[in-house]
């Protein structure tokens, strides 16, 4: 008998299976560490100590997690409507331009809390604009959104390259980046948050956008499970034919979903651009858009799960950086391997263990 249709309790579906998949990913990562002649347990210990040991480490972990929450939400919103937005990377990159333009034009005149709302809107608008064309192509012309969003990642990359090298670059400087924003264009650091727990933030760039990310989690939850639009999105995700039979307009839902998804990705730029480096730098997204895919998958497309998964990846990023200091044979790119394995086991192979678990479950529960 097939095991695919046997229902399992929620704690197995949302707790046990993801944890086992995660364990497998770490097991194979451990094998890689072992293969290059280091102790996997020692590496894990250093990684955790680096990410969670001191206030500064925690600050960095939360800083990375902030970016991943935004991109994870971006991917999740699209998945609820059955759309695979693989272009969060490009949308975040263009969102950075939106945030930077606001910061560059306002930072001289107003304090940060006046700049911030405009920067949020600017980054979201630019991110949404980047998602608009693939959305329109999917909604009206039937082009596959996965392909078009990939293409747009590259188009945006070329565009930003041009803008940074030719337009926003500081005259006389070699580095392709904008000028440093003044105080009015920077988001404040969250020293007090770490301070509350008795730690010290130190050089960690944890900033106000962390709180914006948490607000967005709540808003996304509200949108998906508590609004009519969210209901329509989920219906479309489950069955496009049912949605159209119920009179929901396909093109409209696709457009709105992708604009929201692109906007969330765009807001990710607030964190590195206005929160950390205080300038627009080339390739500042650094793969966070793709990490968003993993975060969304791990978090089962639910904001609460996304926060947890983003923290996990934050730990990996910060811990991995510390690890490469302590164990020079393991480079920082070990994180990329772990990330890939997590996506593989938690995403593509998520059903691999299910038949075995169903059999065990049936024996134990005596059905």
């Amino acid at each position, binding site marked *: 008998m097939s095991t695919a249709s046997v229902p399992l309790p929620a704690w197995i579906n949302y707790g046990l299976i993801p944890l086992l998949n995660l364990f497998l990913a770490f097991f194979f990562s451990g094998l890689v560490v072992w293969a290059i002649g280091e102790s996997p347990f020692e590496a894990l210990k250093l990684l955790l100590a680096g990410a969670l040991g001191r206030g500064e480490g925690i600050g960095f972990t939360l800083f990375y997690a902030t970016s991943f929450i935004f991109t994870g939400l971006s991917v999740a919103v699209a998945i609820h409507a059955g759309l695979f937005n693989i272009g969060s990377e490009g949308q975040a990159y263009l969102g950075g331009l939106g945030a930077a333009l606001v910061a560059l034009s306002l930072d001289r005149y107003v304090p940060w809390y006046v700049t911030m709302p405009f920067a949020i809107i600017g980054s979201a608008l630019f991110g949404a604009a980047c998602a608009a064309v693939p959305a329109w192509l999917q909604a009206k*012309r039937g082009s596959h959104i996965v392909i078009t969003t990939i293409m747009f990642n590259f*188009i945006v990359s070329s565009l930003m*390259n*041009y803008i940074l090298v030719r337009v926003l670059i500081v005259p006389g400087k070699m580095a392709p980046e904008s000028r440093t924003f003044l105080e009015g264009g920077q988001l404040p650091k969250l020293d007090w948050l770490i301070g509350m727990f008795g730690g010290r933030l130190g050089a960690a760039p944890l900033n106000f956008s962390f709180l914006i990310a948490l607000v967005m989690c709540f808003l996304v939850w509200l949108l998906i499970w508590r609004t009519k639009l969210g209901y329509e999105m989920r219906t479309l995700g489950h069955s496009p034919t049912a949605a159209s039979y119920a009179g929901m307009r396909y093109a409209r839902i696709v457009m709105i979903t992708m604009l929201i998804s692109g906007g969330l990705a765009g807001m990710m730029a607030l964190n590195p651009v206005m929160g950390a480096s205080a300038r627009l730098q080339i390739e500042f997204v650094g793969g966070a858009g793709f990490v968003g895919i993993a975060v969304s998958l791990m978090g089962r497309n639910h904001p609460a799960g996304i926060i947890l998964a983003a923290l996990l990846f934050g730990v990996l990023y910060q811990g991995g950086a510390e690890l490469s200091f302590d164990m020079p044979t393991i480079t920082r790119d070990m994180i990329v391997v772990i*990330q890939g394995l997590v996506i593989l086991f938690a*995403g*593509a192979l*998520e059903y691999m263990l299910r038949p075995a678990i169903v059999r065990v479950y049936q024996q134990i529960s005596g059905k």
Partner: protein
Amino acid sequence: MDYFDIFISILGSAIRLSIPLLFTALAGLFSERAGIFDIGLEGKILASAFASACAAYWTGNAWAGLATGIATSIVFSLVHGFASITNRGNQIVSGVALNFVAAGLTIVLGSAWFGQGGRTGQVPASGRFSGITLPGAEMMRDVPIIGPLYANVISGNNILTYIAFLMVPISWWILYRTRFGLRVRAVGENPGAVDTAGISVAWLRYRALIVAGFLCGFAGTYLSIAQSAAFINNMSAGKGYIALAALIFAKWKPVPVMLACLLFGFLDAFANFMQGKALPGIGEVPVQIFQALPYILTCVLLAGFIGVARPPKAGGVPYTKER
């Protein structure tokens, strides 16, 4: 230099740049025609470039490098198959995962083994595929027009280049003139019908993926030990995605795939040539426009403004036998 010489040199470099695209796009052709989306092309060429550079470095034999590259790329293909065929996982997620694994693993292993920040050691001359001068190339050189064309564009390439162009008619023949090809095309359109005919959908798709892995192995090998003499971090630099674009631009057909790859290779070569030069009447054209052009063209095509690009119908959908 007069215009003809410039044209010849751009054409020569266009061919060199389009070879990895051609192998990769043909790989994608087999996998997508069988109904398996292959975002992981990028990862496969990266992994095989690394593997063949390592093997060629240690053995000093280019063919050993090629074999290792192909084997590595086939392993990646099989993982993709295990996830997306056997476990019916999401094909795009699986492809993205493999790209990450390849990007990370090549640097981690490379740094651990060679200690040069991800670079492999310099591959000796015997471990590389070097240019072959075709018979009569020197004699023909002085013949106007066809002489330089023959001597500088057609002759002087390495063996992988000629294999790449040979793969085009072979792929066409396999896809359109063999039983396997017919079944591959059928399984990409209507796996249910193939299953009803008593043919295993899973095994057919696995075989298509193995062919894809085989071809990606050539692409990676070309990058690391034919075009250069070592593996460098992130050497594939998005070529897997451009090949994917070329495949779509060619509407999933072998001969148009070759033309699309040549076009994208030409754009790349032209962009390199135009760097810092001004076009008469227009002024300096930003090099980024040429870099973005393959992707823009593909989007325009997908929008249905240049004919209709119709992907294989069952692409991306895992096949479930009736229960």
